[in-house]
């Protein structure tokens, strides 16, 4: 992505402009603005204004019929920090990201290597990996609910064959978040595989032959040749996975509703709950502002560090 480079490479005309050229230039500018206007209006309505009103609401008290909302500084934020649920949610989301992102990426790479190798039934293998991507997250959660249900679920039916006791995977705080992570990884890995698959096609096969001739083991080839070449792809996938770990919470509605005892509550789910179950708009706004702050940091890192060090085309 080239943010800083000039978009139009045509050199500016050095001669003084005649009135017709100036007129034309003005028309071009007006046309340009007119063309951008519809998109700009909608972006303002659904991205920029809501960001501003979120910040505004986060610094104001909750208005009631008797007492209108007033500016109360950082009180809403202080409330959040004092709420133990806040720290549970942050801990959950950090753990969720710290597990699902690396595992999805590693699995995606493994899938891509296998889907790229000339193995028998490669078409089946490829579609099998990619299939979860086209399912709605809600449907994916339903499928996994069938696995996790205690007593009649697939996992319990299987473990009972060996005389193991029934486990309520989604119902106990120790296992619930893990069970949710499995669904996320299942849904995401195949999607990320596609990007690795594309990147692998651009790597010349001579490299592998050269490595084989040199007697390098497959692991060495992977570590010293493939992984460095796949770095831009990994960075791209990483950013995507990071964003998904914030925005993709559909499965929580089906699997756990944030429970048991907040064990699977993620940031966006908590925002939804505060706003639409408890009608606590100001604290939801403060939490939204914090999430936006995190996303802003991600954006800055992406634009300044990653894009500079790794060259996209």
């Amino acid at each position, binding site marked *: 992505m080239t943010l800083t480079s000039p*978009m*139009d490479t045509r050199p500016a005309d050095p001669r003084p402009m005649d009135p017709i050229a100036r007129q034309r*230039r003005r028309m*071009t*500018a007006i*046309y*340009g*603005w007119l*063309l951008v206007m*519809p*998109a700009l209006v*909608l*972006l303002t*309505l*659904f*991205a920029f204004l*809501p*960001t501003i009103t979120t910040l505004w609401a986060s610094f104001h008290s909750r208005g009631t019929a008797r007492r209108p909302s007033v500016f109360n500084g950082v009180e809403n934020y202080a409330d959040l920090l004092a709420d133990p649920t806040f720290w549970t949610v942050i801990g959950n989301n950090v753990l969720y990201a710290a597990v699902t992102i690396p595992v999805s990426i590693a699995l995606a790479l493994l899938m891509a290597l*296998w889907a790229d*190798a000339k*193995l028998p039934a490669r078409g089946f*293998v*490829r*579609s*099998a*990996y990619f*299939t979860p991507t*086209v399912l*709605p997250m*809600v*449907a*994916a959660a*339903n*499928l*996994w609910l*069938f*696995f996790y249900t205690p007593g009649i679920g697939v996992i319990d*039916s299987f473990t009972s064959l060996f005389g193991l006791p029934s486990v309520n995977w989604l119902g106990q705080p120790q296992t619930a978040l893990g069970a949710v992570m499995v669904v996320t990884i299942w849904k995401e890995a195949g999607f990320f595989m*596609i990007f690795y698959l*594309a990147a692998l096609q651009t790597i010349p096969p001579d490299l592998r032959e050269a490595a084989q001739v*040199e*007697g390098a083991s497959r692991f060495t080839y992977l570590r010293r040749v493939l992984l460095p070449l796949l770095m831009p792809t990994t960075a791209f996938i990483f950013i995507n996975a990071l*964003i998904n770990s*914030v*925005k993709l*919470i*559909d499965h929580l*509605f089906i699997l756990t509703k944030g429970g048991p005892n907040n064990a699977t509550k993620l940031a*966006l789910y908590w925002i*939804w709950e505060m*706003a*639409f179950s408890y009608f606590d*708009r100001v604290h939801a*706004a403060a939490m*939204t502002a914090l*999430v*936006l702050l995190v*996303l802003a940091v*991600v*954006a800055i890192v992406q634009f300044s560090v990653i894009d500079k060090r790794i060259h996209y085309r």
Partner: protein
Amino acid sequence: MTDLSLSDAAPRVHPRFDAGKLLDTAGAWLLALIWVAPLIFALWASLRPAGMALDFSQVSSLTLENYRAAWLAAPWLTYGANTLGLVTFTLIGQFILCTLAGYAFARFEFPGREALFVLVLLQLFILPEVLIVENYAMVSRLGLIDSITGMGLPYVASAFGIFLLRQAFKSVPVELEEAARVEGCSWLGVLWRVYVPAARPVYLAYALVSVATHWNNFLWPLIVTNNPDTRPLTVGLSLFGAPESGVNISIISAATLMVAAPLLVAFLIFQRQFIQAFLRAGIR
């Protein structure tokens, strides 16, 4: 590695490579089986009589009864029509707005263009999903609660779409545009006759990604819809599968597969195009 290894490496590599390939094949197949297992189990459960979801003893007693029960238990046709409406509205809106804006960013010089483009790119990170609270307030201010417009509108001005089309338009040779202009084409005529046809593959790729995304979208439609007449499939499915609704697992599986089927079948048929579309749209 030294040159010495070259001579003895050659005979050794071959058999080890085969053993490796065997392991690879086994691993790849195992992972593929694990990956499709949830779908296979759901398919099996959906075809079994009530209470026998996981009973593998009597293969003969397969039934479509669960599909009938699931079909009759919720207004799926309405849900489906709403999803179709949502996807269509969003896609058409995205095509129009992103084409115009992408064209402006690619080919027009106007003051503030660079700053504006950075603002647009910001939307890649200010996700509509995160702004649900204030977007809900906005949509209700506009009187669009419980409407397809309300469900689709926040996604219509897609920064991703604007970015993709700007890239595509920039790669069109300026000479083509100038030739069309000489023949008396207006600005919009040039856009319609030169740029849009040249970017056709990008449109196709973007359409596939957009349809798949909005067909599967859940959180925002859940928030914006309050009644069954406007709900899309995903929201309908989530209510249908809720434990308090008391339907059994075979019927839930049947409903889940019914909802997933259109995209799933489309994917299996157009697999190659699908994957290529995702690739084209995802790589910048």
